[in-house]
């Protein structure tokens, strides 16, 4: 209750939010059956990790933490471009986006 008065947010709250977003991303990765939505869940997990990076950068007053988030963003942009191109190629080959139907490599 003391934080309510002093108007300060414990950084633990930010870390808990980050963990919750990461867990929701994993749940989405497991239960979604659409290739594009699975990819979106991965982006959600990346964002959750970015939030904890920024939180720790604030805690230790380090600029490097924020720069790491910057690099993660750039890599995520590259990953999204290549990943979506792969999704388009898979859709051309199989005419479906359901991950259950894309089972060419299954034993």
């Amino acid at each position, binding site marked *: 209750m003391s934080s309510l008065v002093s108007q300060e*947010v414990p950084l633990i709250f930010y870390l808990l*939010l980050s963990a919750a977003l990461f867990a929701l991303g994993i749940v989405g990765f497991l239960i979604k059956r659409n290739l594009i939505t699975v990819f979106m869940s991965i982006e959600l997990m990346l964002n959750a990790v970015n939030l904890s990076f920024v939180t720790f950068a604030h805690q230790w007053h380090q600029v490097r933490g924020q720069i790491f988030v910057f690099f993660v963003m750039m*890599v995520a942009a590259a990953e999204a471009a290549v990943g979506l191109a792969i999704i388009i*190629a898979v859709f051309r080959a199989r005419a479906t986006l359901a991950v259950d139907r894309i089972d060419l490599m299954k034993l």
Partner: protein
Amino acid sequence: MHLILFFLFAGFCLAGAINLLLQSHPINSALSLIVVMTSLAVLYLLLGAEFLAAAQIIVYAGAIMVLFTFVVMLLNAGREERTMGSRTWRAVGFPAVVVLFAVLATVILNTRQMGVAALSDGITTVDDLSRMLFHELLLPFEVTSVLILIAILGAVALARHGHGEPDGESNPNRSRERTVGK
């Protein structure tokens, strides 16, 4: 003020993430992911990372999500069907995720050294950020630009017409697509 803003936008974040899971149409999931990313930008601003807040909106909520919605509309992705495979994974995956979250939360709640964030903490300026980025981390920065160049080439090569089509049995969409393409 900080507390109100935090809980408001943390609530938006969680609501958007849960909505992403509940929606069955990919375009609705994409729109709720935009809500998550924009709220995260506000949270970055609360933590004093103004450049990252701007980059989050421009790169994530702007560029990446435009790419996602573009692909969803290009492929005309309909609503997904629930299959038996997903049910078994739900039975195995949910407890595993709950355990993972419990472990993470326990570790976080047991930390003693974490401080607090207030609005008066000050902002990491672009000046500080670029001084570090262009003096000490110049090589990784340049390597990343090469990585993005390779990603552009890879994306063009992968999505080019005629790539990734099967050699054997044909599907009805393919011949139509070929004639339309020519």
